[in-house]
């Protein structure tokens, strides 16, 4: 079992390019064994953070550890245990997929020669690329390239996988397969650090998430913890919406919206059962009352105060 509580741990990690603070002092804590969604719109600093974590870019400030190893000093000890997909796959176009993986494995200190071909074949199977193993990389589609990148990350068992937008360019079927693969890896005990700008993707796959916005980590925790950062809402369907609105407003509910016989408002700490009792006592007939399950998107909007668009 891993001797470290966190697969990734950073303290005040920052990276500036000139006057631009791409990463602005973030404290990541990625629990060992979690599937951690690193969420943020394009340009929020996700990829720069990943580059710093992997030792490709020198941080302007801060410290970090990978799998309990202090970085960047102990990179040669930590990185063999890390499989990574950074800002899209990259291979030699004039080699086949299989040749690329063989060569990639041979470039590191840990690629055992005796098992190499077996491991390459297994990784190709795992990402569903066996049939195209003998084709030149330049003939691959974007989705196939992405799969080959994943195969490279899976050439040996890893303790940590860092996957930057792994479903980019994939068709819906491929996207499903990759999500399935990520869940499977997670259940095998691999920590997965998955960056994405797709809220739904994070919501479907991850156990934990961190929300990036303009270089800052606004919040992180389990998905359930994150959802509570947004105020839950209550939806009711009544026979007298006008009176119901007045009752709920008196109770202290804000942001009331009416649509036909339905009313929706922020609970703001009110209990749904109290709202129900007040409505009934006021003579309003209640046919439906639903405390709405909060999505991560609600949490995101609550955290950033804006929608999910490219940061300016």
């Amino acid at each position, binding site marked *: 079992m891993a001797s470290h509580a966190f697969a990734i741990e950073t303290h005040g990690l920052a990276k500036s390019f000139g006057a631009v603070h791409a990463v602005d002092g973030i404290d990541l804590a990625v629990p060992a064994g979690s599937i951690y969604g690193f969420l943020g719109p394009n340009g929020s600093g996700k990829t720069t953070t990943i*580059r710093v974590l*992997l*030792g*490709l*870019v*020198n941080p302007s400030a801060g410290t970090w550890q990978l799998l309990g190893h202090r970085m960047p000093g102990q*990179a*040669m000890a930590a*990185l*063999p245990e*890390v499989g*990574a997909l*950074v*800002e*899209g*796959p*990259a*291979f*030699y*176009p*004039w080699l086949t997929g299989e040749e690329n993986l063989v*060569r*990639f494995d041979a*470039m*590191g*200190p840990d690629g055992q020669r005796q098992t190499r071909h077996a491991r390459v074949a297994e990784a190709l199977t795992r990402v569903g690329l066996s049939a195209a193993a003998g084709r030149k990389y330049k003939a691959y589609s974007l989705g196939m390239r992405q799969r080959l990148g994943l195969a*490279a990350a899976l050439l040996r068992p890893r303790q940590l996988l860092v996957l930057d937008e792994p479903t980019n360019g994939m068709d819906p079927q491929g996207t499903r397969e990759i999500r399935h693969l990520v869940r499977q890896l997670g259940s095998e005990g691999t920590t997965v650090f998955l960056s994405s700008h797709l809220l739904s993707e994070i919501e479907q796959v991850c156990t934990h998430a961190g929300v990036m916005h303009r270089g800052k980590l606004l919040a992180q925790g389990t998905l359930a913890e994150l959802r509570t950062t947004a105020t839950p809402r209550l939806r009711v369907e009544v026979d007298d919406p006008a009176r119901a609105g007045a009752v709920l407003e008196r109770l202290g509910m804000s942001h009331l919206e009416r649509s036909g016989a339905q009313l929706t408002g922020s609970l703001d700490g009110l209990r749904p059962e109290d709202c129900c009792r007040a409505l009934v006592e006021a003579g309003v007939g209640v046919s439906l009352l639903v405390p709405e399950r909060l999505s991560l998107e609600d949490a995101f909007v609550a955290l950033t105060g804006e929608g999910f668009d490219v940061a300016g």
Partner: protein
Amino acid sequence: MVFGRARVRALLGLLVAVPVFLALAVYLTGGPTHAGGPAFLDQATENGVFTALASLAVTMPFFIPLSVAVVAGDSIAGEASLGTLRYLLVRPSGRSRLLFAKAAVVALFCMVAALVVVLAGIVAGLAFFPHGQVVTLSGTTIPFLDGFGRSLLAALVVGASMFGLAAIGMFASTFTDAPIVAMAMTIGAVVVAAILDGVSQVAFLHPWLFTNYWLAFADLLREPMRSANIWKDLALQGGYAAFFGSVAWARMTSRDVLA
């Protein structure tokens, strides 16, 4: 890996074509013209070995440096432009280790390029011209095998003469993510050196130009062999390699890899 690439094979093919073309041209035009032309060409009809040496003299100023500039300039910048550099570093290959591995391949290429010219020259020369005793530049004769051995030695010297340029190429390659820029900078270095070499007002600089002793291999064909300029050349190449290699290493081990 490098030698499997189409462009590298094309470059080596070009280096094979030059001696063949030279031998054919001399053979078809019926012998030496004594009208200037590249060194050794006049002797080409006397012995096949001289076709090899004439080929070295012809390819030395441009073709061999061009091929070295392509391979050295591509070494790091090529990986950066493909994006494979980030994966090599995360693999992890180690930044220093990767640079040294690339340097070894580039050095090997320098040697192979020069050997290809000499071997193609000897084969083409023997096909068209006699292969008896070799008349040295000093007028004495030496056995054919001795002449053959000296040609191979000349190839090694020429290969090593490229080390300074190769280091400049790798230095350029660590400063850009566009291989074509690194190649152009490297070829630019050859052109600048050639221009400076032709300006007598900066004669004090000439002994320090990495191109200065590029034709010193000819001294191997004297009897006895003269080695003074060859040693100066090797020392100079070592100095260039040490300086530009160090800067390349400092850059490689500290840079942000954003490609």
